[in-house]
């Protein structure tokens, strides 16, 4: 039963993931993402991580997705081609496909380097078995995993600043970096070289 459910949820997650990329309307993409999150949270539940499952739903599906939806509604984003046209940037899907394929081929090469037969995998039991207890999680997070925790907070700060730096409106009079015609190249001619 649990196994069937796992496969169902996995297929659901993958299908939703594909939907995120395939959907032409940003709204559908977001909804598909929401579906993927639900499936994942189901998998967490199956694995016995109740806290993680709930957090997943609360934070991602509850908060972040709603924010996404707000942004899409507010900006009134339409067709993806429209977005591409407006920004004037098109990402070559071919390159991306090649990159993805090469990762797959690489994995295949990995299989080939290993050489011989397949045996069922004995996964190691996770060391922190009590990870689902909230208290254990908290203790672990603020002792052993404190540095990664802080690193993650720095990561968030940095991402925020980075996004602001890119998104903020340019002030009048600042150069636009179109690639040519810099005003300061029009300085008076200097003397010849000393060579």
């Amino acid at each position, binding site marked *: 039963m649990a196994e069937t459910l796992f496969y169902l949820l996995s297929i659901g997650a993958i299908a939703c993931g594909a939907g995120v990329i395939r959907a032409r309307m940003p709204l559908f993409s977001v909804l598909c993402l929401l579906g993927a999150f639900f499936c994942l949270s189901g998998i967490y539940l199956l694995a016995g991580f109740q806290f993680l499952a709930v957090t997943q739903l609360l934070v991602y599906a509850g908060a972040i997705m709603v924010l996404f939806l707000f942004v899409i509604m507010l900006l009134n984003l339409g067709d993806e081609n429209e977005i591409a046209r407006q920004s004037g940037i098109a990402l070559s899907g071919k390159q991306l496909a090649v990159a993805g394929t090469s990762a797959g081929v690489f994995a295949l090469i990995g299989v080939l380097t290993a*050489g011989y037969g397949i045996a069922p995998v*004995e996964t*190691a039991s996770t060391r922190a078995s009590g990870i689902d207890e909230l208290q254990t999680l908290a203790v672990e997070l603020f002792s052993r995993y404190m540095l990664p925790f802080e690193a*993650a907070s720095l*990561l968030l700060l940095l991402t925020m600043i980075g*996004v602001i730096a890119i998104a903020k409106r340019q002030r009048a009079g600042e150069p636009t970096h179109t690639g040519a015609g810099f005003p300061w190249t029009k300085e008076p001619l200097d003397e010849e070289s000393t060579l």
Partner: protein
Amino acid sequence: MNAYIEQMGLIAPELVLTALSLFVLTWDLLKKGRNSDHIGYATLVGLAVTGWLLLQQWGMLGDKGTQTAFGMVTIDRFGTFFKLFTVGSMAVVTLFVMLDKNERKHGIGEYYFLLIGASIGAFFMVSTNNLLLLMLGLELLSLASYSLAGFHKGSKRSAEAALKYIVFGGLSAGVMLYGISLLYGLTGTLDLGLMGHAPEGSGAVSLATQFDASPIPVAIAVVLVLAGFAYKVSVVPFHFWTPDVYEGAPTPVTTFLAVGSKAAGFAALLRFVGALFLTDGVDASIVAYGDRIGFLLAILAAITMTLGNLSALRQGSLKRMLAYSSIAHAGYVLMGAASMTSEGFAAAMFYLAAYYCMNLGAFGFLIYFEGVTGKDDIDSLKGMGWRHPVVAWSMVVFLVALTGLPPTVGFYGKLILFYAAIDAGLAWLVIIAAINSVISLFYYFRVAKSMFLTEPVPQVPMRQHGLAGILCVLAVVTVLAGLGAFKDPLRGWADEGPASLEIYATDAGSR
């Protein structure tokens, strides 16, 4: 909590950098709109302090590393070497930002903040045995790089670069995370040391045990993680993003990507490979598998250097040419990793140090040249040699070094790499690399040809004395290091680095 505070001393450089980044951010907010050069100077001072702390740390460290922050951070000479490398490249990049004529002088405090953030990411990446922190460091570095690549908002090329970088970077991070999660599932730990060799009672299963039971999942996991690193250091076939991103990003950012970011990627790659396959105590079966991984890396190295060099031949833009050249050089460095010996790792590290000098120089020249002409194509270089002799001759030194000719550090580095590779039985790879350096001569010397051999076209002989000075110093260092002047610090550091990884040299004859 006290235990935590006691261990803070060892991560002082990271803390200083973090404090610096926050300081820069706040100061920029307070000084909004005024000249940002002060922030640049503050960054330089902070980097100097960090560098000083790192040197102190180097002195205190023995041959063996030590761990801190509950085993999250590994402080050893290998990591410190790359931290010094990062600080060094950051300092030069900061100077480049300040001296870049194409950059605004106001309100670019975030520029410095993001660069420092990227360095912190690199710091975490190079000094951890824990895949969680490694991934966080990688993401810090990457996210900062994405924003930096798109920093020139008005430029379509810059925006395109950022978008490309973020999409390819996201893909690579996903691939790598998948590999890491497989490794975690197989071994029950995120610690590379335990994966390589799990003692009784550690609760983990060593990778070798799993490999003996079932090799294929282990192989997939290892190879996927390697693919993630391959993206970071732009090894073929994961190099697609490199030319476009390098070309579109602001040139100082390109410099950082080509030097600092690439070195951090290699550091993580070497540590990963070293910990899993070369540490004392790992089983013979996995060492044998490591040799096959080494062979895979050797093939990738051959393809990378050849493709990088052949593509560079066709480029009209100096910036794009340097991007392809950096791909080719990733292939050379990978030779060292492919050797799967501590000599090979030391050679890779030394070559990175050489690459630091010559590539910073070449990109510095590019910034100078863009400042003078506003263009980046090689044809516009015509006559540079006669109008800007000092800068142009410095560039010739860098070109010679990049080609790998004596008496420069580029030659020295390549020689050591060749040793390591032949010693590891990769003579065929050395022959390919040697042929590649002949190919590379052709496109590197197109630059020299444009500068000196063609008649000058009228251009604005504007001078940038600051940049010219930096280039001169770098050129002199490149030559002196090639003559063996800094053999003690450079070679010694590069040799001690892998030693601190506890790598033993595998018996080359058994292969």
